[in-house]
């Protein structure tokens, strides 16, 4: 039930974000901060400039989600191949790589993001770079652990006993399985990128000022907490449902394809 609902929500929400892309409403200050009305026009209410909050959230969602798609497209292949390479590397190189990974994982990624902003200022490129640093070490370690557990399997031992080289083993036996595992974790990675974008933009070190993303909307609504508390609730609610749906799908996939018992 919950899986079907999650899929419906994701499909509907994605279609809605694309449809609302062409919409560009001006400011109507006489309609500013209207509370949500359940039946007719502003279902989510309006923002301080009189724009419809639902449409604004859809626009923000489109930007956040496209950015998450870009970041996923970069992180996914790199994390899979790095995980594979580190797993089959020789012992010394592996230890060094693991130490570097541990350092980045235990180091709060926010600080790295802050350091980035301190160097190159805020902007889309900084945001993408920070998201990259947020997610890459964890994704690499996930694939690394998976590859290492695969390496202990008997058929790998058999293959190497029959004289298959490390390259052969990784290409024929490891890569397909690690790829499947990483694909199952893909919705999860995507949802965590959405949350990270929201957090960074909320702190003011994400998207450039004036842009509408999920994090920027959340950050704006915080300033109207007393006059318009519905803003904070309704801009964050779709984010919550979207992230929840992606995680449910990831969990469901994992249940079907990995724990097959």
């Amino acid at each position, binding site marked *: 039930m919950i899986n079907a609902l999650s899929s419906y929500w994701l499909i509907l929400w994605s279609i809605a974000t694309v449809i609302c892309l062409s919409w560009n409403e001006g400011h109507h200050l006489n309609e500013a901060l209207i509370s949500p009305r359940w039946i007719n026009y502003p279902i989510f209410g309006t923002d301080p400039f009189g724009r419809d909050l639902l449409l604004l959230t859809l626009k923000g969602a489109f930007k956040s989600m496209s950015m998450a798609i870009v970041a996923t497209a970069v992180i996914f292949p790199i994390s899979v191949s790095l995980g594979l390479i580190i797993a089959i590397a020789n012992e010394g190189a592996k230890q060094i790589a693991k130490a570097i990974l541990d*350092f980045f994982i*235990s*180091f*709060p*990624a*926010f*600080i790295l993001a*802050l*350091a980035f*902003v*301190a*160097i*190159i*200022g805020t902007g889309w490129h900084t945001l993408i770079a920070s998201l990259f640093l947020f997610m890459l070490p964890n994704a690499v370690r996930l694939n690394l652990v998976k590859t290492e557990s695969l390496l202990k399997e008997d058929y790998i031992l058999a293959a190497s006993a029959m004289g298959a080289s490390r390259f052969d083993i990784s290409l024929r036996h490891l890569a397909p399985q690690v790829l499947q595992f990483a694909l199952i974790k893909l919705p999860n990675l995507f*949802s965590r990128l959405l*949350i990270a974008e*929201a*957090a960074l933009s*909320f*702190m*003011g*070190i994400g998207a450039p000022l004036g842009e509408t993303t999920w*994090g920027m909307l*959340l*950050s704006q*609504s*915080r300033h109207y*907490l*007393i006059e318009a*508390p519905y803003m*904070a*609730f309704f801009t*964050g*609610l779709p*984010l*919550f449902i979207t*992230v*929840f749906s992606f*995680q*449910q799908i990831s969990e469901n996939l994992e249940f079907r394809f990995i724990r097959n018992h």
Partner: protein
Amino acid sequence: MLSGIIRFFIIVTLIFIISHSLIRLIPGDPIAAILEESGLVIDTETLRAKLGLDRSLWVQLPETAIAYAKGEFGTSIIGNKSVSSLIFPSFLISVKLGLLTFLVAVFISFSIGLAAAFEIGNKKKRGFFSTICSVWAGSTAATSIAWIGPIFLYLFSVKSSVFPITGSFLLASISLGILYSGFWAKLIRNQTAFSLLSQSAMGARARGSGELRILLKYGFWPASGPVFGYIFTQFGRIIAGTFLCEIIFNLPGLGTLTTEAVLSRDFPVIQAGIFFTSILALIGNILGDMIRTMIDPRGAAV
């Protein structure tokens, strides 16, 4: 132990070098960038000398390291205050917030997780509390402090004045602790239920031990190694989480200080802020590792 100390000092040195060479990585002239973005009216050469940019990195780094060892962290560009007077109060606030959050998360996750495990142990199948535990884990994993923080602030400080509207440590740590508690609760439930279904727990029940004793001694205690192992290594994550929390709840901690300094390009404060936050996270991780090894020596870090 000795190798641990050596590793600690290597990492501290690395963090120090990274945080203090950041300014030299700014494309173009750092001084021009700082003046442009902060809008300060200050003599270029004075600023250059103050940031140590008139000397080479190899001369400046040891000098700054000696000054840091003496407890002199320089003065901020904006307001010209001594950095140590800015850093230490906020350092204490961040530590306090992190510890409170940890306690809240432990309290919530143990209540939910142990209740669910107790139910599984009695009924031999998942029931009501287990569902609560799963839903709790799923929904907290999907929530960001950027959403739940303002909502809690509205509900408990604006609408009803249970907590003060600014600077409430308790409200901040409750909303942050909730986010961590979900996954921990699920972990506690799964591990404890696994050992509760084992023969030793059944034997204890047959001998007539009390239910609470069975739950804690034969259920939780054998499973505590992995549980504590995971929970205590989350110290560093919690410290990172307090960053956003401080901004939402108006707590003048390290997160607020460093973020403001970054946005106004106040480099002496940025350098000290990044250095001390990293040290805090590092100490958190090391303490976590030590406590974990004390409880469960099997998983000792080599």
